[in-house]
Structures are given as C-alpha cells and as structure tokens.
C-alpha cells in the first residue's frame, strides 16, 4: 500500500486559549488549553493521545474537527488548510472526520429512534434518500454487532456498551477517513471496554480508517495505537511509534507516566518514579517547560526557556532540552 504514508491531517503550531473573564481583575487571563501543538496523522494509522486530565487532549480533538475554533495555527486536511473554511464548507468537510464521545448517554438524542439517529448523517450530507438511508442504517447496526430489531428502539433501552456501538455506527455512516474517539471507552466496564476496543480494531482493518484515540488509560492506548503522542499541560511533549515510545521513553514525564501505570501481575518488579506535586494550572503556566515544576532533572534553563522540539530517534520527537537531540523546526 503506497498510500500508507500519505499524511491525512497535519497540525501546525496549534493554539487554543480560552479567555477567563474575571469580574474584578482588569488584566485579561487565558486558560492555555492547547499550546503550540504540531502533529501528523497518516492514513489508516491509529494515533493514541495520552495525558492526565486537564492536559488538553479533548480540546485538541475538538479544535482539529473545528468544533472549537483554534486561536492560532493551521490545520491541514489532505493538504487543504481547513482553519479558515466558512461554516457551510466545514460542515461538508466533517463528512471525512467524525467523532465518538466519552459519554454515550449524553451523545444520543433520547427522543430519536436508533434508525433515525443512524439515517440522519446520510440525509444531512445528501448521500441518499431517506428510504435508502433506513436500509443502510440496518446494515450499520449489523456491522457493529447489534441486531436489526434494535432499529426501532430508543437509546434508553440500551446499555452503555451498546450505546457506544450506536455512536460508532453513526460515525461510520458517512465513510469517514478519520474517527476521533475521545475517551470512548472510559465510561464502560472492563469487560465491555474490551468488546468496544475489539470492534474498533476490526472496523479499522476492514475500512482502513485512521483513528485518533484519546485516553488516559495507557494500557488501552498501547493496545490499540500505532503511534502515540503524550500531552502535558497543553503541549505534546513526546511523539513516537508505539513500540519505540513504550520501550524507550525519552521525556521525563513520559517515563514517570509509564511507571505509574498499575501492573497487570502482582509481585512484578519495577522502578516506580513517584512524581511529586500536581499539574500546574493552565492559567498560570510555568514560564519555561511546563513540566519543570515536577521534573527531577529541571534546572534554571528549564524554568525559563520554552523547550524546542528535538528529534531523538526515527520519527521520535521529544520536547526536552535535557534529553537533547537535533532541533526540528516545522
């Protein structure tokens, strides 16, 4: 497959700042949810985005699909800059990029029957008539492992896992090039999680869709991804192929994060790096490196200078001057 290396989405210097309006303070402050993010997503790959809560994973996904407007930076979809597209054009563009959200209870309209939920995308994007859409909806249900009889039901008649299947079916309806899954299994029980992950892996193989898989659960990200990006305080601190990242993490935060994952067997030996303190607030970011307040390697340079992006291995980028490497400017 020669198109395997084709870049589907490229993000450059993306920023999203939310203004915080203080009642009394004159000085305008911002929550810097996404700070200068650069990413490439290739066709058919699975990019896992990991990070703790509040690090900007979800905001990033929403900015990429322009459900939130970026403050600065560019987003290219198949080489086309979509940052400035007018709303109507953007709506058509979303045919190619779909999202699956965390809470399957909140993301399905409780007043619509499943068949209506699933045929809506066809009608909105003018793909086919409503009648054809109904048959296609039934096919979609089959695809995600729900019976035909589900079509008549309302969302409340399903369990969490089944609802998430409906959400996935809805995302698949328009044959997108990419699906962004924002913590799509976090609300589910372990045994159901495994079902949904298997479904996603299978669908991705069958339709060669790219998946952006956002999760705080490193075990799942490791299972599903081909590439992984680690976020901290709005910044992507490290990106690499999965094997490389999990075997050979470079950034001190990635190392600590990996060591914090609960082991899967009791009595296993490991060196746990316990990080002290907590994530600083994205309103008052530290001046230099965002991680400098918790990092054991940090020195004065870290605290004052914003780290550049270094190339530390094959397609392995890391934002830490202590680790070093060749500076990349993209």
């Amino acid at each position, binding site marked *: 497959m020669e198109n395997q290396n084709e870049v589907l989405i490229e993000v450059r210097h993306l920023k999203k700042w939310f203004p915080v309006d203080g009642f009394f303070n004159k000085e305008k402050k911002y929550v810097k949810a996404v700070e200068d993010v650069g990413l490439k997503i290739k066709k058919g790959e699975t990019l896992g985005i990991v990070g703790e809560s509040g690090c900007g994973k979800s905001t990033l996904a929403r900015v990429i699909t322009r459900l939130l407007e970026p403050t600065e930076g560019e987003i290219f979809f198949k080489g086309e800059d979509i940052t400035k597209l007018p709303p109507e054009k953007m709506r058509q563009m979303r045919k190619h990029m779909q999202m699956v959200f965390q809470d399957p209870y909140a993301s399905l309209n409780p007043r619509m029957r499943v068949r209506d939920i699933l045929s809506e995308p066809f009608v909105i994007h003018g793909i086919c008539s409503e009648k054809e859409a109904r048959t296609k909806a039934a096919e979609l249900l089959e695809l995600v492992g729900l019976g035909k009889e589900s079509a008549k039901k309302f969302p409340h008649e399903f*369990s969490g896992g089944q609802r998430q299947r409906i959400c996935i079916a809805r995302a698949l309806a328009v044959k997108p090039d990419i699906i962004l899954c924002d913590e799509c299994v976090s609300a589910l029980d372990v045994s159901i999680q495994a079902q949904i992950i*298997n479904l996603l*892996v299978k669908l991705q193989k069958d339709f060669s869709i790219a998946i952006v898989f956002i999760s705080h659960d490193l075990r799942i990200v490791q299972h599903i991804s081909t590439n992984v990006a680690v976020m901290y305080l709005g910044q992507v601190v490290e990106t690499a192929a999965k094997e490389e990242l999990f075997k050979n993490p470079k950034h001190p935060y990635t190392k600590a994060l990996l060591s914090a994952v*609960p082991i899967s067997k009791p009595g296993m030996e490991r060196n746990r790096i316990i990080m002290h303190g907590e994530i600083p607030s994205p309103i008052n970011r530290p001046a230099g490196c965002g991680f400098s307040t918790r990092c054991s390697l940090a020195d004065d340079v870290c605290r004052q200078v914003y780290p550049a992006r270094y190339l530390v291995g094959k397609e392995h980028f890391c934002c830490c001057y202590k680790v070093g490497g060749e500076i990349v400017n993209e």
Partner: protein
Amino acid sequence: MDDTILKVENLNVVFNTKYGCAKAVNQANFSLKKGQKLGLVGESGSGKSVISKSIIRLLASPPAQISGKILLEGQNLLELSEKKMEVYRGNKISMIFQEPMVCLNPLFTIGNQMMEVLIKHEKITKKEAKSRSIEMLRTVEIPSPETRMKQYPFELSGGMRQRIMIAMSLLCHPEVLIADEPTTALDVTIQAQIIDLLNNLNRDFGTSIIMITHDLGVIAEMVDTVAVMYCGNIVEKAPVADIFDTPKHPYTEGLLNSIPSMEDSGKDLEAIEGSVPSLYDLPKGCPFRNRCKYVRKVCEYHIPPTVDLGGRSVSCFQYTDQWEVKE
C-alpha cells in the same frame, strides 16, 4: 483465627423498589484479619459498594433490607443502635469515598472538619485536636499542613482532597479502613501516589484495609486477598497471586483477559460476550451463565455452591460432582 477482626457472615441485602425486588448482595461471606488488605473487585452494579456501606451502616434501611451478620471484634454491627454505631464509626471503622469533593463540606475549612472528628470522638481540647490534625496531615504527606488547615476544599486539587479524606478517616486510628474506589476519580500519577500512601499506612499502623475497585491493576499493586463479585455474588475468593495466575471462575478469567497488558499487545482482547444482566431480572441459576463460555445444563437450575479449594473458594459447578453428570 484469633486475629480475625471483621467477619461478614451470610450477608444479604435486598432492595424493594417499585420496579421489583433487587438482590444487591447475595450470601456474602468473608473475613478480614488484622493488618490484612482485602480487595473487592467487580463491575458497576455488582454490589461492592453496597457491601461496604452495609458494613459501616450507611445504607438507608428501608429501602434496603439487610440480613446476616457483620462481626467486628465479635460485636454484630447490625444489632447496634444508631447511637452506639456512631461510636464505632470513625473510632473502629472508617471509610473513604470515591469523590473527595462531594464528601468534604464546602462551607468549612479543612481544619474545622478535621478537628470536629476528634472533638466528637475523644475528650480532647481544641488545641490538642489542632495539633493532632496537623500531625495527621503530615503523615499523609500534605505539604505545609498549617496553611492547609485554614483552606477550604475548593482550594485544593483532587489528589490533595483525597489525602485529606484519608487523613480524616485515620484520625482516631480505626482498625478497619474501607476505601471505596479511592483512586477512580484521579489521574494515574496521582493514583500511584495514593496507593503508595495507603500501603505505607497499612505497614506503619497495621490498619486493615478493604479496597473496593473495578481496576484489577490497583488490586495487583495493593491487596493480599481478592474477592471477585458478580451480580451481588462473591464468585471467587483467593490470595492475590492465585487470582492472577490461576483464575478458577470463568468470570475472573474473562475479566483478566479483557485488560490489555503492557507486555503483549497487538493481539485481540478476549472480551466477555454480552453484558451484565439487570438485578431485577437475573437469570435463573448461575447469574453468569448467559455470558459463560463453559456453560452446561446444571448451571441453568441452581445457584452454584461455594466450593472450598484449600485457601481459596469459588462458586462454580465446574468444581462440583454435578459437573460430570451426563446431559
């Protein structure tokens, strides 16, 4: 058997609601030794929290109907009057909850809430209460405890609040600490900190801990003995290493196979098919039989008995004589 501190015998909890009768806990039996760490695992709705709340008698009854025995140092907690129970709660047995924000009163300072515990339970002056609270905050590794005493819960982060909750629950040196999903709302790095803290407290004070969680990783890191719950039944009980190495119950096996492991990835996960049945509408016989890959005819009629396998027990017909009977 003298060092058994808490013993739960034939505990049943039934909720009578307008939708029907839900058996949240069915014939639960387990005991906790001094200094032991027991883990209760199961998916949502399996009855883990109901057990913990019945032990500390925080379950409103009615609607809950609790029967059986909960023996703390020989005293049946279910027979105590509410006034007497108040003496036990905090002094002998205490609990930390999943959401530390909901459990702290937003209108009072941390210091105020901590000192209240001591003043209520012990004859102690305010000054002593204050110094002991600060001491305890230091034990749970909270930086600059004097300042924290004057702060309100909203000024602290989630991990910090959970530490405060732990400090509060340990103030009167209880013998049993029930931790109901204490790390679920927290990030992995903070979770690691809290697990470390609980392990240290168990080592230093000899506090017995009942750890309730759905995360088998947390179980592997923390506890000595595990009880696996499914639909209100304790289906398997064993030392932690045995659970992970040789799971006996099909549900435990399925649960272990559903977690992606950090060691071998890329393979398909072995998910458990189907979903958890509703408590109002449990299948007859074994509650797991609709999802079990080994299911046989015997499973349809009776709830499987608890079989003792020497140091561990399991509730499954596979380990009884009835299994081999011709179908």
